[in-house]
C-alpha cells in the first residue's frame, strides 16, 4: 500500500468515526484505539489548534452534513416521531449504516429494513412512521431515477396479451395503511415556510400538523409516486390499478397482469374494459410506458 493511500484510509477512518453524545470527536474509538495518538501522527498542530482539534473539525462537519441531509430527506418521519426521537434514530441508523455511496441521496436506502428491527425508535406510531418513510424514500427515487424513452405508435401496434409492458424506472407504487400523502404535503409545505417560523401563523400551522398526526387513523391507500417535468407527484390509485402496475413492474405479461388485477375485484365484468381503457390512457399520457 502506498504511503498516500495509507494516510487517506487513516484520515477517512477518523473523519467517518461516529461522534460522542456531545457531538465531539471521541478520545478513543470503538475498537479502543487512541484517536489522539493517531491524529498526532498524521496532522500538524498550529499555534491555535492541536492535531486532534484540527481533525475534529472534519469529523464534526462530516457528521453534521449527514445529519442535515438525512433530515432534509425525511421531514415527515421527524414530524411523526418528534425531534428528540428523530435525532436518536439518525445517530443510531447512520452508525449501523454509514454512508457508502458517492451521493448522499442514498443515505436512507436501508432505513426501512433497519427500522423493522429497531421499532423502539418509532414507537408508539410505528406503522404510521414506516408508511411515512416508504413515501419519503419513494419520493427520493422518483426525483432522480432514470427516465427511459417512451413507447411509440409502432411499439404499441405490436402489443398483445403475452407482451411485457415496461414502466419508467422512476415510477414507484405503494400500498399504505395511512394516508401519508396528505400528511407529507402538509409537512413539506410547513418546512417550506420556515423563514416565517417564529410568527404566530407558522406556530399555528405546526400545531395543526401535530394534531393531524395525533388524530390520524388507518385508511388503506394505494399510491403512485412519479415525476413530471422535474417535479415529484403523488397519484392515488385504485386497488386494481395498484395490482396491475405492480404485476407489470414484476415483468408479468399484460394478460396475466390484468387477470391478477381483477382477481377478487368488486368491479363488475362489464365495467372492466372501460376501466382499463381509462387507466392505460391516463398512464400513457403521464409517460409511464417505455420501450
Amino acid at each position, binding site marked *: 500500500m502506498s504511503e498516500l493511500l495509507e494516510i487517506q484510509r487513516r484520515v477517512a477512518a477518523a473523519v467517518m468515526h461516529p461522534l460522542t453524545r456531545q457531538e465531539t470527536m471521541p478520545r478513543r474509538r470503538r475498537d479502543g484505539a487512541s484517536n489522539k495518538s493517531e491524529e498526532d*501522527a498524521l*496532522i*500538524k498542530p498550529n499555534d*491555535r489548534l492541536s492535531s486532534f482539534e*484540527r481533525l475534529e*473539525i472534519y469529523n464534526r462537519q462530516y457528521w453534521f452534513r449527514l445529519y442535515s441531509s438525512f433530515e432534509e430527506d425525511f421531514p415527515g418521519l421527524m414530524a411523526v416521531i418528534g425531534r428528540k426521537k428523530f435525532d436518536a434514530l439518525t445517530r443510531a441508523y447512520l452508525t449501523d449504516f454509514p454512508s457508502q455511496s458517492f451521493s448522499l441521496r442514498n443515505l436512507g436506502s436501508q432505513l426501512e429494513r433497519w427500522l423493522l428491527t429497531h421499532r423502539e425508535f418509532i414507537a408508539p406510531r410505528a406503522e404510521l412512521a414506516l408508511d411515512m418513510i416508504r413515501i419519503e424514500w419513494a419520493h427520493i427515487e422518483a426525483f432522480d431515477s432514470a427516465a427511459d424513452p417512451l413507447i411509440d405508435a409502432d411499439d404499441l401496434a405490436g402489443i398483445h396479451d403475452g407482451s411485457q409492458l415496461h414502466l419508467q424506472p422512476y415510477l414507484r407504487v405503494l400500498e399504505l395503511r395511512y394516508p401519508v400523502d396528505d400528511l407529507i404535503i402538509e409537512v413539506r409545505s410547513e418546512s417550506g415556510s420556515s423563514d416565517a417560523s417564529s410568527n404566530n401563523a407558522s406556530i399555528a400551522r405546526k400545531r395543526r400538523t401535530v394534531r393531524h398526526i395525533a388524530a390520524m387513523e388507518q385508511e388503506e391507500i394505494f399510491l403512485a409516486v412519479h415525476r413530471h417535468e422535474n417535479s415529484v407527484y403523488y397519484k392515488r390509485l385504485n386497488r386494481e390499478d395498484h395490482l396491475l402496475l405492480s404485476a407489470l413492474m414484476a415483468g408479468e405479461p399484460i394478460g396475466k397482469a390484468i387477470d391478477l388485477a381483477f382477481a377478487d375485484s368488486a368491479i363488475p365484468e362489464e365495467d372492466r374494459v372501460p376501466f382499463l381503457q381509462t387507466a392505460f390512457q391516463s398512464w400513457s399520457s403521464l409517460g409511464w410506458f417505455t420501450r
Partner: protein
Amino acid sequence: MVENVSSYAEYHASEMTEWEFLNEVVERADCGILLDVNNIYVSSQNHNFDPFTYVNAVPAERIAQIHIAGHSRFEKYILDTHDHPVLEPVWQLYARTIERAGPTATLLEWDDNIPSFEEVHAEALKANQFLQAAAKPAVRELAETTR
C-alpha cells in the same frame, strides 16, 4: 475544471504548498481551474499564509470560473459556511484574481441561512463593480493600491 478546497488541517507528510500541488495537477491534466477565492482566504487564516501568494501563484490563463462566498469565524479557526455576505478581504482577493485573469464567470455561493432573493442578488451584483474595474486600466491601479 478542478476547484481548490478550503482546509483545516495540514499533514506531517506534505511536501508542497497547496498552490504548488494545484498547479502541478492542472498542468499535468491540462485542465482549467475553478478558483474559489473564499476557500483561499479560509485556508490562509487557518494555516497562516498570505492569500495573495496563493492567488498570484496560480496560472491566470487556466482560471475558467471564480467562486465567492461568505464564511464564519470561530475562536480558533474560520469555516467555509456559505451563509454570510462576502467579506471585504475576499472581495480584495477577487479583485486581484480578475485583475490577473481578466473578467471571468463568477458564482456567489450562498446555500445556508439564505436571505431574500433581493439581498442575495444585490450581493452577486457587487461582483460587477470589480469586473468593470478589471476592464478599465485606470481603475486597475486603484485595485492595486487596495491590496
